[in-house]
């Protein structure tokens, strides 16, 4: 058992290494990855200024901007990655090795976490230092819980999505691209989700990032309680359930899709 755990940890490290090294070797990409996207967040802050919103709405955008980086990491650097791995000729190897596919996926996410976190920190820096947006640490424990539980649920969800990519390939990639903006809209990345009305906001709460944003805004923004859709403790509770359920579903989803792919002959390689 210990040996198996060690193997999975090594697999995570092995796959993460590729991403970490690529940051140093593909330096030209760094500004595009970590600095320029922050400017889109700034654009939304200026939009609120243009329409005369109170400064707290800037903080609301800021928190949305930080969580966007993790959401995009899950979507593009992990969930859709099995499709690219197949295109690159690596998918066959991942099904040939004894390490779990979950570890390999996690390795991709961990490897990108470095750039993701730099980007999240740059966003925070721009928001807090340059825009001097108001922030108030009302309940640090809740904020930390919301953040980490949502990451766990998000990455679990990403793994579940990756199993879909395994069988659908390019179609799933387009679906992911199709869902990007609608999820920005539904999850309320740039406005309080309760503005969508109870029905839509409830549906949107199936996405972990919606709950995280709703909760974090309440505990980090002065007067943020008024923006909240659900009480913070309910957000935490649902996220805790999701943090357990999504990885569990991902495990079964990946196994099921792997069996399906082998049955249908979809783990094709490009050179054969």
């Amino acid at each position, binding site marked *: 058992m210990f040996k198996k755990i060690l193997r999975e940890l090594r697999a995570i490290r092995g796959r993460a290494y590729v991403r970490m090294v690529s940051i140093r070797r*593909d330096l*030209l990409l760094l500004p*595009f990855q970590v600095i*320029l996207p922050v400017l889109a967040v700034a654009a939304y802050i200026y939009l609120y200024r*243009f329409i*005369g919103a109170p400064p707290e709405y800037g903080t609301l955008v800021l928190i949305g901007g930080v969580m966007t980086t993790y959401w995009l990491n899950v979507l593009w650097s992990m969930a859709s990655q099995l499709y690219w791995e197949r295109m690159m000729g690596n998918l066959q190897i991942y099904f040939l090795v004894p390490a779990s596919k979950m570890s390999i996926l996690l390795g991709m996410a961990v490897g990108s976490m470095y750039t993701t976190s730099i980007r999240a920190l740059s966003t925070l820096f721009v928001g807090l230092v340059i825009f001097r947006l108001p922030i108030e640490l009302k309940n640090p424990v809740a904020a930390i819980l919301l953040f980490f539980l949502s990451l766990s649920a998000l990455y679990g969800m990403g793994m579940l999505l990756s199993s879909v990519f395994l069988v659908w390939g390019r179609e799933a990639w387009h679906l992911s691209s199709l869902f*990007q903006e609608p999820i920005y*809209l539904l999850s309320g990345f740039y406005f309080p989700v309760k503005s969508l009305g109870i029905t839509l906001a409830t549906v949107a709460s199936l996405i972990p990032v919606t709950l995280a944003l709703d909760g974090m805004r309440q505990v980090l923004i002065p007067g943020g309680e008024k923006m909240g859709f659900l009480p913070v403790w309910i957000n935490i509770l649902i996220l805790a359930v999701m943090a357990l359920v999504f990885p569990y579903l991902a495990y079964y989803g990946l196994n099921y899709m792997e069996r399906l792919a082998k049955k249908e002959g979809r783990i094709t390689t490009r050179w054969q």
Partner: protein
Amino acid sequence: MAIDFSSLPAYLRKFLLSLWAGWKITSNWTEPLLFMVYLIVKPLSSVLILIVMFYVITGSFTGEQLLFIYVGNAFFSIVRAGVSSVWVITEDREWFETIKPIFISPGSYLSHILGRTSAEFLFSVFSSVILLVAGFFVLKLPLGINLPLFISTIILTLIITTILALLFCSVAFFVGHGGEFIVEGASGFLYLFSGVIFPASTLPTFLRIIAEANPITHLTNFFRASLGVSAAPQVELWKFYLISLIILALSYFIFNRALKLALKTGMFDQKLGH
């Protein structure tokens, strides 16, 4: 394939084939109906975000500011097509591995990039028109049309889109699996500095200089003026054409230098996937 381009000159043939391939690659992934949804849902969602933001603060779905934001955003989806063309390099090199056969076939590689960019441009113009029609009928936005100015603006936009494609493809030659980051990063920059969802005057002075020097800011305003949303910018249209063509020539020069450097360093066809 029913279309036959064989009698055309190599450059034109390559351009048209890439335009056709761009259509096939983007549209052929699923049912045509879903493809239409794809063309509509994404831009519609992004504009709905802005509408909700506006509504949260003003409690209204009307007003000059909303008109400004709505039209600016509809236009930006066309500008974004130019940046999106960096995908051509990533796809050709990293995924489809077609970069070598395309490069060595008659006609320049640039014809291929321009063909694919034009496909993206046409898709985005279509999306943009759908958004404007929806704005006119659903939100009752007071939109009119100054046809000569509108056509002029669209032609200028094609030039600007080409410039963006040339510049960002020049960068894409030297990065690996990173097309999506270039698209996102560059779009972020342009979204902030092109007067898309707020006037450049909202920016502090040192940032306003960048926005005002950016031709896309003026182009966005021309687009607004062509739809009767605001008065035409102070810049005369012929001067704008002249400046755009000069920048186009400069971008063409940069693209060629970048391509030569990529060939010299062997990076042109080197897969770097990570």
